[in-house]
């Protein structure tokens, strides 16, 4: 349940890589020595480790060539735990590595099962502990808002020793760093009889406020082809920010569905939820939803931490995608004839924060003449001249259908971007949209259903939102990449 070492590495696309921070946990190493006996493999020096890890992750200079130790076709599960080949026949395993942007976070969990052969990853609790700690540290290092500049990184790395003293002083991870500080000042606990949760750093004082936001994300793959079934799915997350007095205040949030709504499935809850009903958990996307399935209300009693948190997340099988599209390309000499239509389903609120369609073109020259007409919205060509942006504005017209027609010539002087997937007539439209105050599943939190056990009257704010991610409409005149879901019946 402990880690032997921890590394934080920065790099710029594999160049200028350096170990920004590393920590070896000597007492855990001491234990590992006696556990491993003759199969003990020591932790390599930082520089050596860096080189090995970069090679394994395909980030080192020899990226292009075939490296037998890395590129062998023999399958061994490489992720989330990679294996690094040290000198001779020794290997370092299991190295957990999380890579995001210019940072790689890695740790080496303790293998506490003495065994001749390598124990399965699933039998080592230290692996899931390590994954959790790395993800927490990653969130901490990136907490300035996604972008990471060098100064920000230096400041955060400098804070690590005192942070680790709190959350992992001797190699056993106790907690993950707090990201997102409480909005209101808190007071430390004084003499109270109730035990304070370890995940709560202080107590809130002031008027109770509960903020619950439901955000649903819709993904889709549309092929416009009779033989291939279009795919879409919806998942939602419920985020809460609670400012409530007391050591362990009770709050209950209830999600409800409209009368004919499809049930929420695959529900995951935050550890602060105190109890769960079995019927909430059993709805799974693996089962064919029938009318008898439990469809709410979904009650989540919990005692909130001070910082904002994700109370629960779910998936839902909605009967139709919000926008049904068709995309047709016809190759003409050095140009493409384009035909697009998008239809907004009648059940979806016609009031967007934004809605735009991106039409990228790969493996071709830059665009020359673009002659397209749209029935609504406005079309721009990006500066790089390799894609169209069709901004549809806040509303679809009354017919709820928009079209784009025209011809694009690829007569530009230089080559546009390349992509191994989108060759020939394989092309897609990507939709980006956000619709405030709606959800596809119909899931909502009624203000009056939020219960707070508090002496003062709480202020309750609830909101809903629908957004898209990976919403693709493939050209139906070209081969679309295969996707799951259409073969099993």
């Amino acid at each position: 349940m402990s880690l032997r070492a921890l590394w934080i590495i920065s790099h710029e696309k594999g160049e200028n890589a350096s170990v920004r921070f590393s920590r070896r946990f000597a007492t855990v190493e001491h234990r590992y020595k006696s556990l491993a006996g003759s199969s003990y493999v020591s932790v390599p020096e930082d520089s050596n480790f860096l080189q090995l890890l970069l090679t394994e992750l395909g980030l080192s200079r020899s990226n292009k060539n075939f490296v037998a130790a890395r590129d062998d076709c023999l399958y061994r599960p490489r992720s989330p735990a990679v294996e690094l080949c040290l000198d001779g026949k020794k290997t370092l395993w299991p190295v957990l590595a999380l890579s995001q942007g210019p940072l790689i976070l890695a740790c080496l969990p303790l293998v506490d099962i003495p065994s001749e052969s390598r124990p399965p990853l699933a039998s080592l609790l230290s692996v899931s502990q390590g994954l959790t700690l790395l993800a927490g540290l990653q969130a901490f290092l990136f907490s300035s808002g996604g972008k990471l500049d060098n100064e920000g990184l230096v400041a955060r790395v400098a804070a690590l020793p005192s942070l680790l003293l709190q959350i992992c002083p001797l190699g056993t991870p106790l907690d993950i760093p707090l990201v997102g500080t409480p909005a209101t000042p808190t007071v430390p606990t004084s003499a109270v009889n109730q035990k304070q949760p370890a995940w709560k750093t202080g107590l809130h004082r002031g008027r109770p406020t509960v903020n619950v936001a439901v955000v649903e994300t819709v993904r889709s793959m549309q092929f416009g082809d009779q033989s291939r079934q279009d795919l879409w799915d919806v998942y939602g997350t419920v985020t809460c920010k609670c400012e409530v007095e007391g050591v362990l205040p009770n709050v209950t949030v209830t999600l409800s569905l409209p009368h004919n709504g499809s049930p929420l499935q695959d529900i995951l809850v935050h550890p602060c939820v105190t109890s769960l009903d079995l019927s909430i958990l059993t709805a799974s996307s693996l089962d064919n939803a029938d009318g008898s399935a439990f469809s709410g209300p979904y009650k989540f009693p919990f005692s909130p931490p001070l910082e904002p948190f994700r109370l629960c997340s779910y998936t839902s099988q909605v009967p139709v995608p919000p926008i049904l599209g068709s995309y047709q390309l016809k190759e003409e000499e050095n140009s493409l004839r384009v035909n697009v239509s998008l239809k907004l389903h009648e059940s979806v609120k016609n009031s967007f924060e934004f809605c735009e369609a991106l039409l990228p073109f790969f493996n071709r020259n830059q665009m020359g003449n673009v002659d397209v007409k749209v029935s609504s919205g406005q079309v721009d060509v990006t500066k790089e001249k390799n894609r169209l942006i069709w901004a549809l504005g806040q509303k679809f017209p009354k017919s709820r259908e928009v079209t784009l027609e025209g011809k694009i010539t690829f007569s530009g002087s230089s080559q546009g971007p390349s992509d191994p997937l989108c060759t020939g007539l394989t092309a897609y439209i990507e939709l980006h949209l956000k619709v405030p105050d709606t959800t596809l599943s119909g899931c909502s939190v009624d203000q009056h259903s939020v219960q707070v056990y508090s002496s003062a009257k709480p202020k309750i704010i609830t909101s809903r939102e629908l957004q898209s991610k990976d919403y693709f409409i493939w050209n139906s005149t070209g081969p679309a990449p295969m996707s799951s879901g259409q073969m099993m019946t």
Partner: protein
Amino acid sequence: ELTLILKVFLALVLLTLSGSLQVLLLVPLCEHPFLLCSSESAGEETALDLMSVFLQCPPRSQQFRCHLLVALTSVLICSSCAGSRSRASLDFLDLLLQVAQDTSDHHGDSSPLCLRNTAAECLREMEASCPGLLSQRLELLGGLRQQETSRLHQAYAGLQVLVLRNAVLHLTKESGAGAAQLKALLGGPSCADQDVFQMDANDPAVQASLVLGPMGRVPTLPTGPDCKELRSILSSLLEESYLLSPLCQAALLHRLIEVVAMAPGIPPAIFRAQLLRLLGTNQVALLHVTLLMKCAFTDSLFSAEDEAFLLKRLLVLSQHPVLSASERLFYMDCILHFPENRPISCGDSDEALPVLLTPQLASILLPTVLNDSATLLARLHLQALVFLEDGEEEGGGGLAYIYDLLGALLHMVDRGGSRDLVVTFFRAAFLFLLYFHHVERYSARLSQQLCQLYLQHPLLAPHILNLADRTQDHLPESDWAVGLLQGLQRAITGAPGGQLTLPDLSCHLKVLSRAAEEGNISPCSTLRFLSAVFTSSLLCSGSNWCLGNGVLGVCRRVLLHPSLDSLFGPLADVLLHLACNYGDSDIQDHARLYFSLLTTLSREKLSAVLQGAAEGQVKKRALSCVMAESEGLTNALSVHQTDRAVLRLTEAGPGPLQEPLFEQLFSIRLHFRLTDHHYHPLPDASVPLLHRQRPPPELTLTLQPRRPHPTTIRVAAIFTAKDGLTWHSDMPDLHVAFQQTFLPLPVPSTWSRASRVAVFEALWEEAESEAGVWAVSLFCCQLGEAHLKALLQTHFLPFLLSDSSLEDGFRVLWFLPPRSHVLLKISREDDATLFKMATDDRQLLPHINDYLLEVTSTAAIRQLGSEPEHRS
């Protein structure tokens, strides 16, 4: 006992005023106590020093005090002081307990909390590394946890449960221990018959996880149903587990699982109240510990419905959109090691599908080209297992789906995918073949498609050959790899040769050479291809050495081919052409050699010669031979490092080497590195051969001093071993002693003794008159007459100018190159022996003194004869 570096370190820690610098200084002690405190006594002393720093440290520097506790813990555990219950470690334990219990809030801020938290964590680590250390304090720790209302109860809970677990584990190993002993243990130290536990911390079983699953055997404690006390402790810990951070909760539950598994008196149902909360969690560590719980208790806690539910849950989590990629991959791994209530296989590292996993359920994890490579391969692996189980090869949609996926990947590779994509495709292809190579309609098509792909992208040769090799290794009964190689050969030799480029050709040669290794593939077309290539512009007057080697490599394999007899003519043509027309003489020579081998030797001899060369050591010596074998390049061309010194330079006769790594060494190149500037650099030296059975060769090293001081020279050797590999080995340091710099008076040998003495006297006079240049000193010791004689005989003879004592003593003169002199007058006065000395280099005085001390020391004299009386 403390090393100097450690002393300096501790002094710095004490002196440094700035808190952050002090904390930084502690980092090496925390991270590398093995290096700094390698012995128990060093650890003990360091710990005592650090503890006194801790006590002197003002309470307001909390951070530093916390770091000090961590450093102390690391030092005591890693230097084995804690394991042997040393005085310092017991003192430290008391200190920790005192800090942990100190609830007085000194400054009204939250920092004492931090210190107490760290102390509790240090106690937990001490107990983890020395199981049983705190067993006697169980009641105290339980009380601490229960009374604590601040967040600290988390640290105490982790500590208490670990001590409890270790104590129960200890009882299971005691013969006759049962409910009464357990009760006594939980009741505290009052019980007289309880000794301090001394569990063997070196017994790995004590520290290893006890969650072994139904096939493992956990030691149990026969308590009967009466263990109320234990049950109430466990219930209270479980009840409060909700208040812990998810990481601590998971760790606590893991320990509790171990305790319940050891105590049959406690039903696993004690966990039931927590289960729903755990099954619904979004925390990977909590769900993981639930799986471990299932592994430990199987159907005594999880019903068949629970099992089905958990499996579905894992499937859902393996692709849940809100989880991270690594979490999803981890859950997928958990599916392949699903803890079943009634497992069929018992191998603990074998991957097996859960019985309940149907193709229908698994279809949620079908791979697509839009997956990242790790996910794609993991899903492909899972599906392959599912389809195999389901008898899909009879013809079902599943296999067709996977094959389509392979096709789509291949298409992307064909369109110039990234390295990652290429590797992913070949891994996917290997996985497919591993499970479905016997499904002819797919494996044959794959082979065809690979050949087409290769023709478009010859640079994929290493990947394709790797795939062929791996399938051959793992599927010895399948001839798929041979089919692929044959297809590749056909594709290469059948393609129009007009537009061949150099890089393509060298890839082709690699593939053809590999194909020629297969006895079932006739190299006829290969040879035709080679002759055709020669007539093209590329090779006819080529002088590219690498390319020539590529061709030679193919020829070499053909020479070993079973159907060589029928290939005689075409092969001879190719070799002759190379020998006569190729633009590189090395290639010509080799071609000529192969040609004469081919034309003069019988088949048996030919293969014996070539095979012998391939297996023996001869071939790897020369680079061109290495090239001919091209694959083992890196191994043969890189320098290998020995773990320890395998040879050493000795002054006198050789001492025995450690167990020999090598029998013979060749072309040994010795490299010398000076550690100071007293000598001119030494050139590298060569020794042609070192054989264990023969006397070691003598090597003369000529040292040229700048200043005649003692020195140490680092020595390293690069040599070739019998197996043809090149090795680098550090050798023991070479020490040059002060006396090794002495030379006799540099005058012609014809000079008489009297003239030499005259020179001495003249110099002595100069020394006494010119005190600025010369330094004069005196060394005296108690040395008997006989001893002095012996001393002169042993050490001073070459430098002695007078064989009998003049009235004021013996004359000794050392010349120390390049330009220093030391003059000694050695005489006896009363019972003391006086060494009057004069030197024109006063920096030599300390060395002279050391040297004289050494040769007149008790031990040295004992070697000469008997004890000296006294030295001053």
